[in-house]
């Protein structure tokens, strides 16, 4: 088993270190190195190939745990099937790597190519030696990826290379995803993800048989380029020729066939299996053969003969009773040898002449006889002439289908056409007269000589087919079989001869045939149409992202309301106890009046056009709701509600003022509902409907909540009971805010600070970006009358200190009364706001040099956090309660963490509000200063004369 690790791992390690090796020895051709390693692997595999453990039906397994939770193990499985493939990969690889070492003109390109090809080889070997379904998939996808990279190898030059690469990846990678699902389903159905366990099972009766087989077939068919997925393979011919030879004929495309052969004992030989394989395989075979002959490009021709052969292999695995397996195995081997040789030869031709077009080439025999020999041997093998391995393959192929005349006819025609393709390769390229002068460049010798090995193998394997292959095949073929080069003059032999001669006939008629076969059924266009359809669907999907915020909101609200109504509200509202109207007390009367006021104001704020009026209505609404809170009675909430409402109104009005009158007017026009045209009416009705539905839902929601409300268990009872004993605070709301749920408040002020910082960032970034493009107040003539009259200024400068005193009281005594650090911060912040409004930015900044809002925010938050940490130091909890001066009784104050927290809250909120005001009040022309700004403290009189005197000549 270590041999297996070596075989799989060596190309990988070599690939990863190849650049280093190249750097150490600059003149070295790493092609030799890779080729050498391949031949070593080949020999190693060969040494175990005929050992009894393999030959005698058995298999070697070797397991390393990787991700056992998902059944993913690094396990290997060695039997004659994997050995056969391993020998093909390493054998053909030896030649291909040698070839690659001389194929490229630039060292960089060569190194990059060999690097990728080494990685591919490793992945491919891993694939066939995997015992684990998931590692098989991993290797499978890796080969697809590297194939993608190799097809797109010249992608920086040719768009077609990029397109071909993507197409190949989408088909094989996508098929791979189906395969993954299929493999996992297989593992789930079989209870194990290891082939070694699964191969003993027969899952053809399993409930998932059809879906999982379908998925597996999808994976195999895409990989092995079966109709209608075959189109990626001809499209992959932009890859450098060695890659085409190795990946796209000898190895990777056979992975699908490998998988089918591997799973044949577990899933195969059912009606579904056989029909699927037969239909797809034969269609591919015939269709490709027909198309191959008319390809103008030699690589195209080879690509289609490849798909044709792959179709044949797939169909063989679908022959009932396992009678096609022998032909499939022989076909795999024969095809690998002759097709890789042909590809590499075409590479030589391309290299030497600069073209691959059949009609431009001709008469190359005299220039490149070695390649010529290789092509002749390989093409004849493809055509099925004895004594070559292709002959054996074709014989067994025909033999497998003898039982059904229709199938036989299809196979026969395909075989004949393949033979035609072989003759074209030999005659038209090497012996026919070229239509125009062919420029010829001499080739490196290894490019030609290496190919002889493959041609030789085709001959030798055919000659010793019985001795060499029967031991390997015996464990794999479920039926009795014979394998000889020449089985005698039986029906099959005559069919074979007929096919070869029919091919010859078709060869002479090839120009006619080209015209006849020009029906156009192009699966690339199907693929493109599929893509175009997905793009169309995607475009429809993307149309929903139409940029209209209102539509987004409509969708969101409608969906949520629909779910809410359907999922719960309707049921709850019909199952809840009847609503008690209850007694009607004085607070209720007040409530009703305030609610009427609130609803009226809310309606007004919706109805009125003018923004300012709407803002005023909104303020009234807020105050009325504040009143409701008072009546509840919830004075703490009411106070905050009213304060925040005031602040919100001030901010709202300031913001409205910063929007130009023109835009505001335009926006107001947009408010008008237009019932005259259809769209307008629809939109209006839609909006109103959604509003009504939301309203009704929320009515139901609130009603249930209210009915729910009486006499239930709630954690709030504990808070009421423990506020005084645990925190020493009579205002339970305060106790919750600063102690029981103090962290909420801590984060809440962080939210507040963040919002103000965000506002600062927002307004300053805009300035830095070159000022506001459109001056919001351009069309407003500044009024000659200033509202900064002496009376206002004097009163304002008296009100501000008062707000500070109110704040101090709220901070210090808020624990037992409404108000707390937050209200303190808002009140004093509003005092600053008043100053900004009445005196303007410059004056305030020059007068209040201490007013650095950011510093306040920093200080407040830092204080809050430090104060929260201090209890930990004394063995308590974060945000815990600690008395700082236990014995001290001064002005009925408790010097504890709660008090400090209140101070911190107040400072933060004050800083935040001032920050908003400072930012907004800042004259837009001046670049925004940093916080470390104020240096001048010029003496100002208590009431400064505004630049424009408030005293105006009447």
């Amino acid at each position, binding site marked *: 088993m270590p041999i297996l690790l070596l075989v799989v791992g060596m190309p990988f390690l070599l690939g990863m270190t190849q650049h280093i090796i190249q750097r150490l020895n600059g003149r070295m051709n790493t092609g030799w190195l890779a080729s050498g390693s391949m031949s070593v692997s080949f020999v190693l595999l060969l040494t175990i190939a005929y050992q009894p453990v393999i030959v005698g039906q058995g298999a070697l397994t070797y397991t390393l745990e990787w991700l056992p939770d998902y059944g993913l193990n690094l396990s290997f499985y060695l039997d004659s099937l994997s050995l056969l493939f391993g020998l093909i990969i390493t054998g053909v690889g030896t030649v291909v790597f040698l070839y690659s070492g001389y194929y490229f003109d630039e060292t960089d390109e060569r190194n990059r190519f060999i690097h990728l090809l080494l990685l591919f080889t490793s992945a491919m070997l891993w694939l066939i030696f995997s015992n684990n379904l998931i590692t098989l998939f991993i290797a499978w996808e890796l080969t697809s990826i590297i194939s993608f990279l190799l097809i797109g190898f010249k*992608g920086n030059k040719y768009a077609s290379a990029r397109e071909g690469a993507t197409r190949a990846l989408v088909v094989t990678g996508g098929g791979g995803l189906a395969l993954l699902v299929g493999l996992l389903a297989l593992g789930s159905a079989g209870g194990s993800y290891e082939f070694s366990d699964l191969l003993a099972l027969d899952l053809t009766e399993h409930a998932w048989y059809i879906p999982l087989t379908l998925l597996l077939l999808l994976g195999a068919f895409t990989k092995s380029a079966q109709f209608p997925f075959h189109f990626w393979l001809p499209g992959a011919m932009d890859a450098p020729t060695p890659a085409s030879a190795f990946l796209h004929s000898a190895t990777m495309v056979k992975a699908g066939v490998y998988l089918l052969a591997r799973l044949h004992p577990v899933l195969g030989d059912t009606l579904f299996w056989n029909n699927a394989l037969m239909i797809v395989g034969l269609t591919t075979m015939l269709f490709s053969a027909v198309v191959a002959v008319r390809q103008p490009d030699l690589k195209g021709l080879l690509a289609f003969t490849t798909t044709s052969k792959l179709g044949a292999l797939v169909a063989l695995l679908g022959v009932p009773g396992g009678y096609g397996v022998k032909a499939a195995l022989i076909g795999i081997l024969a095809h690998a040898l002759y097709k890789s040789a042909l590809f590499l030869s075409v590479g030589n031709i391309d290299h030497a002449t600069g073209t691959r077009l059949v009609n431009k080439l001709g008469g190359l025999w005299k220039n490149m006889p070695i390649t010529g020999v290789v092509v002749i041997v390989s093409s004849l093998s493809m055509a099925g002439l004895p004594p070559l391995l292709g002959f054996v393959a074709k014989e067994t192929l025909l033999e497998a289908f003898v039982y059904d005349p229709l199938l036989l006819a299809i196979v026969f025609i395909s075989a004949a056409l393949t033979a035609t393709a072989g003759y074209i390769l030999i005659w038209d390229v090497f012996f026919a007269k070229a239509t125009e002068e062919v420029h010829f460049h001499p080739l490196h010798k290894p490019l030609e000589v290496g190919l002889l090995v493959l041609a030789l193998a085709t001959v030798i394997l055919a000659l010793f087919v019985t001795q060499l292959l029967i031991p390997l095949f015996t464990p794999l073929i479920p039926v009795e079989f014979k394998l000889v080069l020449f089985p005698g003059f039986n029906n099959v032999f005559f069919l074979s001869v007929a096919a070869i001669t029919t091919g010859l006939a078709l060869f002479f008629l090839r120009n006619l045939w080209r015209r006849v076969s020009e029906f156009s059924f192009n699966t690339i266009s199907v693929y493109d149409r599929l893509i175009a359809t997905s793009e169309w669907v995607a475009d429809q999907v993307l149309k929903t992202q139409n940029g209209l915020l209102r539509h987004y909101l409509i969708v969101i609200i409608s969906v949520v309301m629909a779910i809410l109504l359907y999922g719960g509200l309707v049921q709850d509202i019909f199952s809840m106890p009847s609503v008690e109207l209850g007694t009607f007390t004085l607070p209720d009367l007040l409530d009703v009046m305030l609610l009427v006021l609130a609803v009226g104001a809310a309606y007004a704020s919706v109805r009125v056009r003018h923004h300012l009026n709407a803002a005023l209505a909104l303020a009234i609404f807020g105050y009325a709701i504040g009143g409701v809170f008072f009546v509840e009675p919830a004075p703490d909430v009411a106070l905050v509600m009213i304060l925040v409402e005031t602040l919100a109104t001030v901010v709202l009005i300031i913001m409205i003022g910063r929007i130009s009158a023109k835009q505001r007017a335009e926006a107001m026009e947009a408010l008008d509902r237009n019932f005259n045209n259809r769209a307008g009416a629809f939109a209006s009705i839609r909006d109103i409907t959604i509003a009504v539905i939301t309203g009704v839902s929320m009515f139901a929601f609130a009603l249930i909540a209210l009915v729910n409300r009486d006499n239930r268990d*709630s954690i709030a009872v504990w808070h009421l009971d423990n506020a005084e004993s645990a925190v020493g605070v009579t205002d339970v709301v305060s106790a919750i805010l600063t102690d029981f749920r103090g962290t909420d408040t801590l984060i809440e002020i962080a939210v507040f600070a963040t919002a103000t910082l965000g506002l600062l960032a927002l307004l300053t970034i805009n300035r830095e970006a070159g000022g506001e493009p459109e001056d919001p107040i351009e069309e407003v003539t500044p009024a000659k009358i200033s509202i900064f009259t002496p009376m206002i200024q004097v009163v304002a400068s008296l009100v501000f200190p008062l707000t500070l005193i109110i704040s101090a009281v709220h901070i210090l005594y808020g624990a037992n009364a409404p108000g707390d650090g937050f209200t303190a911060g808002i009140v004093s912040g509003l005092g600053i706001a008043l100053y900004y409004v009445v005196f303007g930015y410059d004056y305030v900044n020059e007068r209040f040099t201490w007013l650095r809002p950011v510093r306040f925010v920093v200080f407040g938050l830092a204080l809050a956090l430090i104060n929260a940490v201090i209890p930990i130091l004394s063995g308590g909890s974060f945000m815990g309660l600690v008395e700082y001066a236990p014995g001290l009784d001064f002005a009925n104050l408790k010097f504890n963490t709660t008090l400090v927290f209140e101070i911190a809250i107040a400072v933060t909120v004050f800083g935040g509000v001032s920050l908003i005001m400072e930012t907004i009040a800042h004259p837009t022309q001046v670049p925004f200063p940093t916080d470390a700004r104020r240096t001048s403290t010029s003496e100002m009189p208590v009431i400064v004369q505004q630049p424009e005197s408030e005293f105006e000549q009447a």
Partner: protein
Amino acid sequence: MAPTNSLILLTVFLPLFGGVLSLLLWGRHKAQRYVGFAVGVVAWMASVGVLWMNWQDGIQIYRLGGWQPPFGIILVADMLSSLFVVMSTTVLMMGLLYAIGCNDKVVKHPTFTTLFLAMQTGLVGALYTGDLFTLFVFMELMVLSSVSLVAISDNRLGLEAAIKYLFISSMGTLFLLLGIAATYSAFGTLNFADIGQILASSERPFLAREAAIMLTAAFLLKSAVFPFHFWQPDFHTTAPTPVHAVLSSVVVKVGVYGLIRMTTLLFTSEIELEIIRTILLVLGTISIFFGSLGAFRTYDGKRMLAYSTFGQIGFILLGIGWGTPLALAAAFVYAFNHAFIKSALLMLFGVVSSRTENKTANLSEVGGVGHSLPAFVGVLYLLGGLSLAGVPPMNGFISKLGLVQSGIDAEMWLTLGLAVGAGILTLMYMTRTWQLVFQQQPTDSTAAVKSYNDNPLAPALLISACVALGLFAAPLVDFATATAEQIINAPIYIEAVLGTESSAISRR
């Protein structure tokens, strides 16, 4: 009663403190960003410590203020929250690292680091808290800081995205508040464990279903699932790169986390569970469809990745909706891996667009820009893209693996078909953009290219993590499996939070 762990505090509040302190370095943006990264590293280490202790000793808690839950607030680090927090702190740390090497104007703004760290506090706090209302407050912190960051983005359309998001997110805030209202009305408590315990042990009160629905809506909105997704492509695309990387990878996961909590702890009774799961499966499926097609067809690289997030979250929702331990574990792995992949890819695209004169990610303008970048950036992008498509052996494959296995167990063939289709589309758009940016030569329409770009160190580290998480997936998968087993068993959480005699707690 679970052990008290102060490291939880460090993870949550250190970023806030760091953010506050960085304001003192006003105007010295380089220093601010270094402070930010240092904080990110320490917070990350703390979060890893919490995770480790979790693995060793089970659920860790911290009672804020020392009050007995459910009366006070409690931070709970069970395996689920620890996992999500480590995921978040890692990506946030990388975001902060990226910001150091970022050339955007916005990262030089004096409030940038503070807002970023505030976002981190909000995110991590929301994941750790065991209290519904505290969750709301933390989420708001996250929302407002992210809105501010996007609004001041170098991309001037960030403003538009920010205002749209704030509108829609405020809608989400309303849903959340309604959910909290319904919850409190129905259960008289806000503590997760307490809610779960009451619903499990008593007759279902009124508004319980409404609570479940509104909370689901709020979380779905946060995770940008159809039809709550409209804000997401706009908001994420226009965000500054380090912010985008965080938003699209971990911030959207808060909603996912909330949904997991709801289905495994809060609403484990049959009726609510069925409602939530149905919603998740339906919307998750549609999201996969919408997100994949959107990413496939949109015009902008960053936007493509944002749409991709939309679809990927759909997959995670499927895992939550199936709800088996295997599916949940798969969802965690998926969420975790996606965070790494997506953030890395976004940063890489940020590196690409930072190279262009006007910082564009428009696909018609970035053709061949990759040629002016170090070659390994292209390799990283390809690795990330393949990982996103679920190609082995990257971590994205591990995600898909678990999810497909649980889908097979649930016999969800149609959904699996959709997953395959989405995977193909992902493969297509990721390889297509890779070819466009890193393979194709620059064309006439390619934007002018600058001589410098953002530092690709952070995405390089993240991609390395992706590779590592793909090759050595066992620890993560083991942890996720253990997590799923833990949270499926709600009494473990309830006991850790409320103590063994929890049912005896008197509210009166």
